[in-house]
């Protein structure tokens, strides 16, 4: 258990000019090459000795990586290298994917958000990733580019374990696609940290709701949790309760209990499992009340 390095260890910085070149570099040096986005997680891990890349492959500038495109028929595509600030203040994201803007805006500080990218946040595979719950409830699909070309992975299949995602050797995330949100939808991201803002999440809860005639309650809610399981996850049992029972305090309370049951947190230096479970319950309840208020106003 060494103390961290005073600086960054040695590596070669390379800046490929095409996705194909980037993919090739990552595949060839898969053990010791790291796709380099904002660096806000990577640098800390390098100093801590968790990773020791020999090559940092800068992919931020590659075609499309910083683009944000919205089409009211096909939905949203966010380049993986879009920074949190860019995502948070993008007018189309603020209007149509408010929950995602909220989540991006909750990361660390303004300075960090000028570097941290949505792709980096998702690809680190941390269960605490702030943009992960929003991506799950909004139906995000990760676009990956690799030696065999492009493929899409839905968010539910993307997170495999702490620090592990569906990204294979030689692949990099180029974009995240979001479908057009259902009419009349509303969403909220609640994050609990040790400071009022600016901290990692001890617990993160994303709630997304929309009218759906096919649901017995007339509404569908999606609930996703961060920092309370090996991966960010949807609380499906809670979602079932919300689909089956009319919205209101009683339903929300039951759903919040179900969400807490879906959480399998650990004790760590940031919080205990017991506290995290209770916070899932309480934050889910708050989030449901808030989103329900939004749905009633639209």
């Amino acid at each position, binding site marked *: 258990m060494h103390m961290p390095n005073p600086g960054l260890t*040695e590596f070669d910085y390379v800046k490929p000019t095409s996705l194909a070149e980037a993919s090739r570099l990552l595949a060839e040096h898969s053990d010791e090459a790291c796709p380099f986005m904002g660096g806000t997680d990577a640098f800390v891990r390098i*100093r801590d000795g968790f990773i020791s890349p020999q090559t940092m492959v800068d992919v931020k500038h590659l075609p499309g990586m910083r683009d944000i495109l919205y089409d009211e028929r096909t939905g949203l595509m966010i380049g993986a290298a879009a920074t949190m600030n860019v995502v948070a203040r993008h007018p189309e994201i603020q209007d149509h994917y408010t929950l995602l803007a909220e989540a991006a805006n909750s990361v660390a500080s*303004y300075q960090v958000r000028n570097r941290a990218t949505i792709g980096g946040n998702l690809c680190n595979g941390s269960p605490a990733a702030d943009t992960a719950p929003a991506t799950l409830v909004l139906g995000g699909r990760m676009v990956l580019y690799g030696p065999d070309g492009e493929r899409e992975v839905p968010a539910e299949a993307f997170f495999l374990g702490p620090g592990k995602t569906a990204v294979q050797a030689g692949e990099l995330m180029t974009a995240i696609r979001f479908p057009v949100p259902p009419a009349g939808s509303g969403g909220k991201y609640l994050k609990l940290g040790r400071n009022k803002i600016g901290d990692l999440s001890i617990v993160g809860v994303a709630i997304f709701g929309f009218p759906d005639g096919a649901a017995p309650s007339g509404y569908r809610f999606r609930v996703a949790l961060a920092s309370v399981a090996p991966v960010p996850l949807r609380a499906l049992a809670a979602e079932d309760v919300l689909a089956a029972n009319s919205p209101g305090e009683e339903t929300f309370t039951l759903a919040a209990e179900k969400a807490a049951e879906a959480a399998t947190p650990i004790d760590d230096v940031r919080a205990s499992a017991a506290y995290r479970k209770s916070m899932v319950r309480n934050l889910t309840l708050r989030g449901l009340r808030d989103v329900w208020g939004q749905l009633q106003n639209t």
Partner: protein
Amino acid sequence: MAIHSITVTVNGLKEHLDVPSNMTLLQMLREKLVLTGTKNGCMAGECGACTVLMNGEPTNSCMVLAVEADGAEVITVEGLAHDDQLNPLQEAFAEHNAVQCGFCTSGMLISAHALLERNPHPTEEEVKEAMVGNLCRCTGYLRIIQAVETAAKKGGA
């Protein structure tokens, strides 16, 4: 390890430098250009003492590789005052006694400057949120926030 030849504009001056891959922008500013106003407080993007403007955006220079600054415009605290006159923010910091040990001050000024550029009339809450990435242990923050509000009223950044 690779060495990169870069051209970066710092405080309005074009600099041609050779930097190793793993050198941070912070190290480049302090060691290659001897611009020591930007401070090293944590090397982890947490304290904000190293905040500079990079292409107009406040950025923790400890979280940027020097090679990434190729072609960029960087402003440090040394670039804020014009002709030895303090800018309205600096003057407000002095007036409000928002400075004690001074180690966080450079980063605070850069973050505040950027805030006022993008939001000339921030609310108290907006000022606090904009500064959350700049830690201070001496002042308790209130005077810093007041100084930013004063500078905003005077229409300055």
